[in-house]
């Protein structure tokens, strides 16, 4: 109750209510998320149910164009699946992978960053050197490599059947350095502050100081980073799927839908690519806009360089 009251009176809420961009982004994001997770309820067709799909329905244009069909509002893809339904299901996969990957990154990154920052010394040197090498390759490159390796080791079929956890793992491993560096930088800053010394003078054990005193104070940068990273992870997933290293076309995410449509763009079926593309951009854009707003409000110093 007290927390709620505090939240209601907070600057956070105040600035949210006075920022139309943040509010409309939030509304759009909520709408998209609800639509994605409510897909089984609201989608007109079930794209996973092969019995309802008729290959003869393929490449039907949206309803307002010549040759459109009333039951397929946004047309169909090359396999005759309803675009709207497939996109909703695809967005659900994109969001699940995006959020799941960020959880994994955050978990690895926060633990390693906290340990590196608080303990310092050799562990710190080693972890940060590793993070540096990985980051200099760029997270996308690492993700591409990892999925390529996974596909080679487990075979394409196994990879496709386990694509969601694999992609979460791949993107999670590829991007942990972002968290580790951010957390480490803010731990180093917090560690110098006198409340940490006060806790040490009290004789509190190191673990308790790390988790109970320092960690809560690194939450602002973690929150800011997390919004950016969700957008990033969704984008990475789309890129991997686009390259054929991600979700299979039988269970498409937005990225694999765009990829499958790309071949048909030359024959004029632009909607198979453009609709999921637009949805993807909208999704990432609203998350980024919210991220910008969160950063403005919390204004933490993110790790640079």
């Amino acid at each position, binding site marked *: 109750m*007290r927390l709620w009251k505090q939240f209601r009176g907070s600057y956070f809420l105040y600035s949210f209510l006075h920022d139309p961009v943040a509010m409309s982004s939030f509304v759009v994001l909520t709408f998209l998320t609800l639509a994605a997770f409510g897909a089984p309820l609201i989608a007109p067709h079930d794209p996973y149910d092969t019995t309802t799909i008729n290959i003869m329905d393929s490449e039907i244009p949206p309803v307002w164009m010549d040759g459109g069909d009333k039951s397929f509002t946004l047309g169909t893809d090359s396999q005759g699946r309803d675009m709207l339904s497939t996109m909703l299901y695809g967005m659900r996969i994109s969001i699940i992978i995006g959020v799941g990957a960020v959880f994994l990154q955050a978990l690895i990154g926060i633990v390693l960053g906290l340990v590196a920052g608080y303990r310092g010394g050799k562990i710190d040197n080693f972890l940060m050197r590793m993070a540096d090498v990985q980051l200099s390759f760029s997270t996308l490159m690492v993700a591409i490599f990892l999925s390529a390796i996974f596909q080679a080791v487990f075979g394409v079929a196994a990879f496709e059947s386990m694509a969601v956890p694999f992609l979460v793992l791949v993107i999670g491993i590829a991007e942990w350095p972002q968290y580790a560096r951010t957390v480490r930088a803010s731990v180093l800053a917090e560690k110098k502050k006198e409340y940490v*010394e006060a806790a040490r*003078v*009290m*004789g509190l054990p190191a673990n308790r100081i790390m988790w109970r005193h320092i960690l*809560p104070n690194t939450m602002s940068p973690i929150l800011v980073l997390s919004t950016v990273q969700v957008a990033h992870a969704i984008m990475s997933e789309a890129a991997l799927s686009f390259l054929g290293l991600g979700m299979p076309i039988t269970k498409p995410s937005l990225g694999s839908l765009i990829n499958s449509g790309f071949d048909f763009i030359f024959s004029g079926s632009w909607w198979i690519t453009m609709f999921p593309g637009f949805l993807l951009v909208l999704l990432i854009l609203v998350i980024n806009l919210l991220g910008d707003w969160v950063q403005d409000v919390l204004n933490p110093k993110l790790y640079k360089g």
Partner: protein
Amino acid sequence: MTAQTDSLVRITNVVKHFDISGGFLDRISFSGGLPTLTRTTVKALNSVSLDIRQGEILSVVGESGCGKSTLGRTVLGLYPPTSGEIAFRGQRIDNLSPKEMLPFRRKMQMVFQDPYASLNPRMTVRQILEEPTHFHFPDLSGSQVQDKVAEVMCQVGVDPAWAGRFPHEFSGGQRQRISIARALMVDPEFIVADEPISALDVSIQAQILNLIMDCQERFGLTYMFITHDLSVVEHISTRVAVMYLGTLCELASKENLYGDPQHPYSRALLSAIPKLGRKGVAHIRLKGEVPTPIHLPTGCVFHTRCPHTDERCRREIPALRDLPNGSQAACHALEEGRI
């Protein structure tokens, strides 16, 4: 006043060096074209010996970088000393494990400089004050702890009704009171106060100084008061230790230091205090700059700036010696009667 001569904390030949050379690669340097590995150490404390007596306020003064804060933190075991001993009531504490150290943690507390950084911004005042109590007195019941929080908050002049608030809801002066309350929660005997008022405004400084002195009276506390503000030192201390570049220059009673400073550095320092109503600036000018604690001068650390330097000062490190007026100072010139 026999109790005053009892030593509560004894610091013997404490040395503290910090290695800032970094990783292996950072240590590579080139001298005469050949790669060599060099270590860079900051010599923060160079053999400091000091007794803190029961019930006194011992002030440690000096300019930034003189090692006064390091001394305070080393005494409390925040930094392990490179060499030397620290004893509390005669028992050596610098080599104890964190567990063996616990009973002493309760006796020795610290108050910090920056009231904005010294309280955890994510904890309420109640949590800040309860945590040490729960930790050190696990036998106390919840209501006993709450009573104690309320009591101590009253003692430092913060309304206990505000215990549910977060630090950022308080002003700098009030936070410093809470910081003092946190130290008092575990019934300490000895408090290291590291520049506790220098981040505060003048009118607030007086409030906190008064509080510090009240607490001493009420709880029979002993303080090590670290500051650069010489007028504050004159106001509150029993004895004063003057430090320069990690070395103790002069240790004297307040009256002796302000009335009859002995060490050339103390003299220069005291002449520089801006005094209300004194016209113009008439201070003893020191030549040159403070050397870095990475490259300490040989012999007496002050010889590069001292007006009385001779050959011996450049060569030999002076020891702290008793002077006729009862003070102690580390200076060859004083010992030889040159000044």
